[in-house]
């Protein structure tokens, strides 16, 4: 339990080197982290434009600004590991490998989406890669993920679960029940709190009296650590240690990533409740240039490298948008499907009328 934190000083955000020595990560991994962050950013900025253009309806919850957190945590997960995403973790799909055509179909609520257009945009899951289709209910995915971890343990697998939640989610009773349960049963799960300081319009100061949310781990007897969520390498190292612990029977970890969402809670939220200076401060801590500098230091980055990633991803993305825009909606009656393992179509569509079978008595 090397990362178990005892007091505030230690739980503060710390760059990668402070966590686990100074040896840099393999070059390929560093580049993969960077390119994935870049793709996430590109995709979400594009989705935001599509929304503003009215090309899909509903809403979208961008994680722009939080890419280091999501990528640093999830980049190494196996297909057989489970991700339990919240409303803000659409990009978890990109990281884990959900085909882009399917993801954008989700945004457009088309029949070709993994959920055939049932959930709201951004609420994307993908069964083949074990990404739980999220409800909107806060913390629900984390609670279900805890059950998946229970199964993994029972099945003696070395797969693990990574459950994302926002700092607002920590106030909810279910969150507590799940983390406490994981502690008792020493489950293979990593709880990642993306503390972006706001839950819709509510400041973290009104959520809880504590400053570093990883201290909550102490109430459950599990390791907790706070990390700079805008430093992908730091996040990666912290997450790697937690994932390793979970995989090897060491039980759950609570990671708090301090980060920030650049935009409103959703695309219809002008986020006037925030001080513009706060937004500017966090934009200046943009995780992507931060990572570029880091890579550059090791001569792993160039404008060209970036341009190449962007160019090929843009193509993929444009193709996916075209695919989704051309895809059909589900047929109206399909609303009746997948309620149960059996069909209810006949029951709902053909209601019979009874007449007396015998003469009046």
């Amino acid at each position, binding site marked *: 339990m090397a990362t178990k934190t005892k007091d505030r000083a230690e739980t503060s955000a710390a760059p990668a080197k402070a966590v686990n020595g100074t040896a840099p990560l393999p070059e390929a991994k560093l580049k993969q982290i960077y390119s994935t962050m870049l793709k996430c950013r590109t995709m979400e900025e594009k989705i935001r434009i599509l929304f503003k253009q009215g090309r899909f*309806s*509903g809403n979208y919850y961008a994680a722009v600004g939080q890419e280091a957190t999501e990528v640093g945590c999830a980049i190494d997960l196996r297909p057989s590991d489970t991700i339990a995403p919240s409303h803000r973790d659409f990009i978890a799909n990109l990281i884990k490998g959900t085909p882009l055509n399917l993801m954008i179909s989700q945004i457009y*609520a*088309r*029949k070709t989406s993994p959920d*055939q*257009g*049932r*959930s*709201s*945009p951004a*609420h994307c899951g993908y069964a083949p890669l074990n990404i739980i289709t999220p*409800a*909107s*209910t*806060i913390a629900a995915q984390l609670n279900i993920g805890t059950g998946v971890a229970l199964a993994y343990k029972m099945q003696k697998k070395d797969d693990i679960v990574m459950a994302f939640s926002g700092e*607002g*989610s920590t*106030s*909810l*009773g*279910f969150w507590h029940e799940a983390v406490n349960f994981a502690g008792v049963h020493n489950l293979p799960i990593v709880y990642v709190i993306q503390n972006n300081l706001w*839950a*819709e*319009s*509510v*400041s973290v100061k*009104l*959520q*809880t009296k504590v400053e570093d949310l990883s201290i909550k781990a102490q109430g459950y007897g599990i390791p907790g650590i706070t990390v700079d969520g805008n430093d992908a390498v730091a996040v990666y190292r912290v997450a790697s240690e937690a994932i390793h612990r979970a995989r090897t029977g060491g039980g759950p970890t609570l990671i708090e990533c301090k980060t920030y969402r650049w935009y409103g809670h959703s695309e219809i939220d002008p986020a006037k*409740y925030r001080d513009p200076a706060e937004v500017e401060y966090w934009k200046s801590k943009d995780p992507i240039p931060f990572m570029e500098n880091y890579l550059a230091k090791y001569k792993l980055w160039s404008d060209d490298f970036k341009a190449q990633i962007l160019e090929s991803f843009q193509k993929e993305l444009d193709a996916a948008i075209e695919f989704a825009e051309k895809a059909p*909606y*589900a*047929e*109206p*009656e*399909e*609303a*009746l499907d997948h*309620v149960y393992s059996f069909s*209810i179509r006949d*029951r*709902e569509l053909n209601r019979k*009328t009874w007449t007396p079978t015998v003469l009046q008595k």
Partner: protein
Amino acid sequence: MPLITYIDAINTALNEEMKRDEKVFIIGEDVGVMGGAFKATKGLIEEFGPDRVIDSPLAEGVIVSSSIGAAMAGMRPVPEIQFVDFVTPAMDAITQQAAKLRYRSAGTQTCPITLRICYGGGVAGGLYHSQTNTTWFAHEPGLRVIAPSTPYDAKGMLKAAIRDDNPVIYFEHKKLYRSIKEEVPSEDYTVSLDKAVVRREGSDMTAVSYGYTMQLMLQAADKMKSEHGINVECIDLRTLNPIDHDTILNSVAKTNRVVLVQEDHRTLGISSEISAVIAEQAFECLDAPILRVTAPDIPAIPFAPTLEKFYMPTVEKIQAAMERCAQY
């Protein structure tokens, strides 16, 4: 009288009640600095301060349970649940505490709270921002459950609820917020929490609904008149618990035919209870089967427009049922 929207009616009622009685306070997610997800509480934190307009932690259970306790201690809390889809964490507080506190203490401890809950579909909200869930609470004696469908009632019933000595669940339909306007008195008034109301008189058929579909039902009734000369008496239920049986049964005694309309899915929606009451207490009055226009029995309103449209009751679907009823 000013012409105002449903949501303005709510906002005004809150404002006036907070001025009238300093025991009234608001608590909920985003009710403060943001003025509510739909702006129902807009301007209130500026006027009454953060002690009376509390941006709560993300925890519906304690939003309601803290209100119950505060009410016991003499306050008049008006907690808010942002979407009824997220009321489940407060299920214990509402059904086991608020509904049963007076009963379990033989009337010596009470909790006059007014729990505002935003509900309803037809707004591309998808599975988790469109639910109805009125049944859970209409089924609980000890709770008053109301669901106004007009700006006038929205204001008058909210004021009455805040002054009422019982726990009241106030269901406000998000599709109504800005879709209808009505002339609403600037003076103080309240609307009874006990009574359904006849919105449109008629002798040929009784139709009953609440919330957004009440408005659709009225439109369908107009078409029945203009297209078939059939006079549909339209009852706005308004109160889902305890239900005003008399207004409905008096109407059925007159019209002998019934169409019930609800946005909720079919099984055990509010219409089921109304149907059962009629079939039990006004059987002699019936000339035709009691028809229900409802959503299909699926878990919630799916997001895609084709699917949502299939789900929602419409004027056409209601009119078709009225025609079937008339022809029987």
